[in-house]
């Protein structure tokens, strides 16, 4: 069975259970499903919202490319990635990644790999809106995220 890859970039929230159900629908050869949900943290009450800007078109293309690479590299049976844009409040979902495979480590590695590359390669930018009403800075990319990505080239 060909691996299925589902990618969406959308303003609205997503439904974790519905996405897992869609990915598993009609097949009983999947042994392991790993999901990653990235949420907006309130930063101890200082944050009112994150504003997510994206590059329409390229965002979908880039995430699809990362998912297909994960499918090939880890032998995934299916992969899903959904990334939201627009204004996102603390506690709300930002991103969902799902990886399915016959065995557990491939599913863990697949989801982890997609997140690491999505962080550093998918064209999204976050701006903070403070709880005091002021508009904060654009978040800076972290060296730790580059390091997390680069470990995947060391490991093989």
């Amino acid at each position, binding site marked *: 069975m060909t691996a299925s890859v589902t990618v969406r970039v959308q303003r609205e929230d997503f439904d974790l259970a519905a996405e897992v159900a869609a990915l598993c629908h009609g097949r009983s050869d999947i042994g392991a499903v790993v999901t990653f949900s990235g949420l907006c943290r309130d930063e101890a009450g200082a944050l009112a919202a994150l504003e997510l800007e994206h*590059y329409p078109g390229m965002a979908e293309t880039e995430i699809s490319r990362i998912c297909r690479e994960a499918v090939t590299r880890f032998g995934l049976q299916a992969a899903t990635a959904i990334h939201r844009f627009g204004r996102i409040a603390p506690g709300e979902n930002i991103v969902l990644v799902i990886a399915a495979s016959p065995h557990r480590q491939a599913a863990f590695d697949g989801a982890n790999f997609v997140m690491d590359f999505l962080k*550093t390669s998918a064209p999204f930018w976050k701006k903070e809106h403070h709880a005091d009403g002021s508009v904060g800075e*654009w978040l800076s990319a972290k060296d730790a995220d580059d390091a997390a990505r680069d470990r995947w080239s060391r490991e093989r």
Partner: protein
Amino acid sequence: MSTVNLVYFSWVRERIGKGEEALDLPADVVTIADLLAHLKTLGEEYESALEHESVIRAAINQEHVGHGEPIAGAREIALFPPMTGG
């Protein structure tokens, strides 16, 4: 002269003051690095946005490229800071 669509994101967009524009580029603008140098001659807003050239990322036709990449054949060139999605 060739015309290319430029798109800007995040603080590059904010500093330049627009999200996109179509520009005619002189023939000696061959690479992304040449493009950055050229844009910085167009005004203070570009100088401010592109001051630290090494942090500026570029994409040609929606694919990531390095600063040495030739821009010949580009329909759309995007300039933006390092990404912070996920």
